[in-house]
């Protein structure tokens, strides 16, 4: 789960990291009032959306007066960046900046540990730094049993600054960032840029935190930060039904049990010349209601011209899936053809259930995918 910049800033502030004041606004009037309260003159107005490249998309602008802040905010609140409508802006004082650095922490798969990263080349996308000047990124593996030790933080901070007063501030911020990362159950936490002000203070200007979804159950305070308005409605609906759904641009709707098989199914659709409309994993333990929800979500996509079920029964029972399909077709009309492949646990019962309502099931994945692609190409007319 992505946090908004303003949420991440608040978590860092509570962890003791110096963060300039900032307020969230959802209307130009609120933006003006916020700029007046901040009262430092120039402010920056920043779109709060879960998308990189906000700046390039016109989502970050300066304003000299509260009136101008309202004006700028109204423009930004009208934007849609990478398919996501801007619903909120952050108003913060425009900082005077002596230098910009990057600091961040991720969970690194290879070393099975958190890894802290710092770069004196801050203010730009760290992926870009990694690609163009990898020698400017310094990494340190953190042993989760000990946390980020003081001397490790100092070593990293010496890569950013030479003045020991700045080094000590940065080392302190690194340790606090690591703790905030752990406390939030994050898989990524970064400050970019970390700036030095003319007063020689090290301050976090922008923050990004991505939380591990598996942490949310035990961290209700973090879960409460979820901003459903900023997510794709179909994906929200899928999550509520305990499904994993990701919308794509093709026309073959895929409903599969298991993430690997779901990806392999999408790949096979493509292999046979089709385009998958989505990733959809109904998960391990099937129940008919999940299948109904899955069909509702997939059929809500107007691009979908055919629906492909690919079920390998293990824990998932084929008869549960068949019952779900039957129940769904009774609840609402599915206007596109459905191709069903079922094999494994309770396969025979499933076939009987489907035949009872005049539907057929195939047992071979390859053939089923070919058929679905073919049907979709005909615009679904062959239903």
């Amino acid at each position: 789960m992505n946090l908004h910049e303003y949420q991440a800033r608040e978590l860092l502030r509570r962890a003791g990291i110096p963060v300039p004041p900032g307020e969230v606004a959802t209307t130009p009037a609120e933006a003006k009032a916020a700029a007046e309260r901040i009262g430092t003159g120039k402010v920056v107005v920043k779109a709060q959306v879960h998308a990189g490249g906000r700046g390039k998309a016109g989502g970050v602008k300066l304003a000299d007066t509260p009136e101008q802040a309202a004006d700028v905010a109204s423009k930004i609140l009208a934007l849609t960046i990478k398919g996501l409508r801007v619903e909120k802006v952050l108003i913060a004082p425009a900082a005077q900046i002596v230098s910009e650095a990057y600091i961040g922490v991720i969970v690194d798969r290879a070393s099975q540990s958190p890894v802290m990263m710092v770069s004196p080349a801050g203010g730009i996308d760290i992926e870009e730094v990694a690609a163009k000047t990898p020698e400017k990124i310094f990494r340190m593996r953190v042993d989760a049993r000990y946390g980020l030790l003081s001397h490790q933080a100092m070593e990293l901070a010496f890569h950013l600054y030479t003045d020991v007063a700045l080094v000590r501030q940065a080392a302190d911020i690194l340790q606090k960032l690591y703790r905030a990362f752990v406390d939030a159950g994050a898989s990524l936490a970064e400050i970019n840029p970390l700036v030095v002000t003319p007063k020689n203070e090290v301050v976090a200007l922008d923050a990004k935190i991505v939380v591990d979804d598996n942490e949310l159950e035990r961290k209700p305070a973090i879960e409460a930060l979820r901003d459903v308005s900023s997510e794709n409605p179909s994906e929200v609906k899928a999550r509520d039904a305990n499904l994993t759904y990701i919308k794509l641009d093709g026309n073959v709707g895929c409903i599969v049990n298991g993430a690997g098989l779901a990806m392999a199914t999408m790949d096979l659709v493509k292999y046979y010349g089709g385009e998958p409309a989505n990733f959809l994993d109904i998960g391990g333990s099937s129940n008919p209601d999940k299948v109904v929800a899955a069909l509702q979500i997939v059929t809500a996509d107007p691009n979908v011209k055919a629906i492909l079920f690919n079920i390998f029964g293990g824990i998932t029972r084929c008869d549960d899936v068949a019952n779900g399909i039957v129940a769904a077709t009774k609840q609402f009309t599915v206007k596109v053809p459905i191709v069903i492949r079922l094999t494994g646990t309770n396969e025979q019962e499933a076939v009987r259930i489907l035949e009872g309502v005049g539907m057929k099931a195939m047992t071979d994945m390859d053939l089923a995918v070919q058929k679905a692609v073919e049907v979709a190409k005909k615009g679904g007319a062959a239903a």
Partner: protein
Amino acid sequence: MSIFINNDTKLVVQGITGRDGSFHTKQMIAYGTKVVAGVTPGKGGQKFENTVPIFNTMAEAVAATGANTSVIYVPARFAVDAVFEAADAGVKLVVCISEGVPVLDMTRVMPFLKEKGVRLIGPNCPGLISPGQAKVGIIPGQICIPGPVGLVSRSGTLTYEVVYQLTRAKIGQTTCVGIGGDPIIGTNFIDCLQAFQDDPATKAIVMMGEIGGTDEQNAAAFVKAKVKKPVVGFIAGQTAPPGRRMGHAGAIISGSSGTAAEKIAAFEAAGIAVMKRPMDVVELVKARL
């Protein structure tokens, strides 16, 4: 022969009285796995299905039965605790079926396992099966037959699909291992490749990868350097968009790394025969046995 589990496996089931635990314990017993104990706090002294003794703690279960392996079917919020407990109790192999384990918990438990010399498979995995000997986890026993192929996979049902193809073509398996789709897992491709290389009964290896991370690339380098047996590979997720998690927590393309194309190229460079479709496994393996 086989890897990790065999006729000598003496299994404790952690969470034996839960919904999933009891269902799969019956399946494992029916398959012939030696399930020697179960653990559910508060049910110590009872028996599962009138045969398997239940204990309050893993320490008691291992002390009383000499179990050497455990399998975990507990809710996500207890799963890491169960791994710690199993490792502390002295079993040498822990198979965690439970999904939803926070990745930061994994960063803490992995060093513990290393200190104790314990192998973890999973979490969030279907477990493993050595056909004809033992099954630990949830892989359906009826789709497997004994034979010369070792299989290792990051996914569940996709593994079943491929095993099913092999079995229908009468190509049996030494061991099928589902290592799980999380970013941090106890046993990775290289661990399994090494074990299959060392297992005299394994004549060919099938490796099923996914987008996300660099495990497959590292495995390819390992195959090139150390594996003398033929390897057939697959990568799921060629059509996956970057930045989106494809169900598995680990299946996510970050920036320009972890793509299917990158992984397939690594496989090919290592001399691994790459399947274009799951069904290709039969032809490719047959040609190499």
